[in-house]
């Protein structure tokens, strides 16, 4: 499909959005939104978003082998999706490609 820019003979204009801002936009909107049962990172530690209650999320912090070691109530907006490599190895179970489709990029 031709973009409007190409159709009218000029380069398309793309807004200059900082990468971090773009990531936050992407990760809080489907299909890459932080949601129930998704692997997330909160303040540098990896875990699973187990429940969402209003603006807060129940975050189950995990250890290196994917076991739950702590349950925290944290601001939902401060969660981001984990990357594929941040998910504990024993809990990955899906290919990097499939993980990317699920937002673990």
């Amino acid at each position, binding site marked *: 499909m031709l973009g409007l820019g190409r159709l009218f003979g000029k380069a398309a204009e793309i807004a200059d959005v900082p990468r971090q801002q773009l990531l936050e936009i992407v990760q809080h909107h489907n299909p890459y939104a932080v949601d*129930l*049962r*998704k*692997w997330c990172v909160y303040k540098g530690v990896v*875990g*699973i978003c*187990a*429940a969402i209650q209003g603006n807060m999320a129940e975050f*189950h912090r*995990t250890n290196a082998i*994917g*076991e*739950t*070691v702590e349950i925290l109530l944290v601001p939902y907006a401060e969660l981001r999706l984990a990357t594929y490599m941040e*998910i504990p190895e*024993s*809990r*990955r*179970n*899906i290919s990097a490609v*499939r*993980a990317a489709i*699920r937002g673990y990029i």
Partner: protein
Amino acid sequence: MALNVPDEGENYALEAFVNKTPATNPIAKLYKNNITPSDTDTAATFTEATFPGYASITLTGASWGAASGGVITYGSQQTWTCSGSATDDIYGYYIVSTTSNKCLWAERDASAPFLVRNSGDAVKLTPSIGAN
């Protein structure tokens, strides 16, 4: 606690939905490793309970109630009763398919763990799943 349908459970449901792979009776199991289910899990993620008297339970198709409001519930409560001394800490349950052993869904108990220590200790579950 939210119920979790992992990736392999979604694929199983889709294939059953279009009759590519006929559905089979699901099997309910308890797990004893400290796991919060996630979308990347498989049946191998969970460590099945081993306390005396424990056995997985087959949930027969005819025993489910009619689906209503996007929810279907098993007709009766299922109970696992310990018949001796044990050391299992039960964190939740998971449901697998009979033939392929795919994890269809799993749920961690909100008040986990449940300590199974003595004869007579029992874990009860009424299986239910929603599609909303």
